[in-house]
C-alpha cells in the first residue's frame, strides 16, 4: 500500500520535501512508517519523542494502523504566535 507523508518544519527539511509517497506492506502501523522513514533519513530517529503523528487529521500513535491512501502527518513541536 502507499501512504502520503506530510512533513512540517524541521522534519520537512530532513525529508527534503513537505510531502512524499511511502510504500509499505499492507497492515503497517504509523510506527512502522516512521521506522521506514528513519531507514532513509537517519536524522529523523532522535525526533520521535517530540513528534506528533496524525493520520487523516486525527491524532495517532505508533500502533495506529495505516491504510492505502492515508495521509500520515509528522508534526514537530509547534512554534505559532
Amino acid at each position, binding site marked *: 500500500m502507499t501512504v502520503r507523508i506530510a512533513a*512540517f*518544519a524541521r522534519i520537512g527539511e530532513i525529508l527534503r520535501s513537505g510531502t512524499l509517497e511511502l510504500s509499505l506492506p499492507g497492515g503497517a502501523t504509523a510506527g512502522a512508517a516512521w521506522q521506514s522513514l528513519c531507514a532513509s533519513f537517519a536524522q529523523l530517529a532522535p525526533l520521535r519523542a517530540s513528534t506528533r503523528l*496524525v493520520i487523516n487529521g486525527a491524532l495517532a500513535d505508533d500502533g495506529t494502523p495505516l491504510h492505502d491512501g492515508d495521509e500520515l502527518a509528522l508534526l*514537530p*513541536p*509547534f*512554534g*505559532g*504566535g
Partner: protein
Amino acid sequence: MHYAIVDAPLDLAALIAAVRTAASGGLVTFVGYVRETSDDGRPVSGLDYEAHDELALRELRAVGAEASTRFGPARVAIAHRVGSLELGEAAVAIAVAAAHRGVAFDACEYAIDQLKARVPIWKRERYRDGDARWRENAPATPPAS
C-alpha cells in the same frame, strides 16, 4: 465568528468588526509582531511560518470555542499568518469582545496561550547574519481552571 490561516497581511480591524455587537462592553485584542531581536538576543531579519492548514484551522476554532465560554460569554476571532514575514509585520491577531472586560482579557490571553501550545504552526527565525533556525514554543502548561 472568524478564524483564519492566511498568507497575506492581517487585518485587525476586520477581526474587531467580526466580534463586536451592541452588547460588547469591552474589547481586548492581541497582536504578535516580528520583532528585531530573538529571545536569545540575536538580530532577526524576519520569520517564516508554515501550518498544517486544515488541522490548524480546526484547532484555532477549538481554541476560540473554548475561549468564548470558559470565562463567561465572549466572542472571539483569531487569524494567524503564514509565509515569509518581515520585521514589524503581524504574525497573529486575536480580538475578543464581551459584556465585561475581565472576561475579554481572560479569554484573549487564554486564546494566545493555547494557540502557541496546540495549533500546528511552525516558525523559522531568519537572522541578520544569514543563519536560520526553527523555533519551538515552550511546552504547554495546563490552563488555570
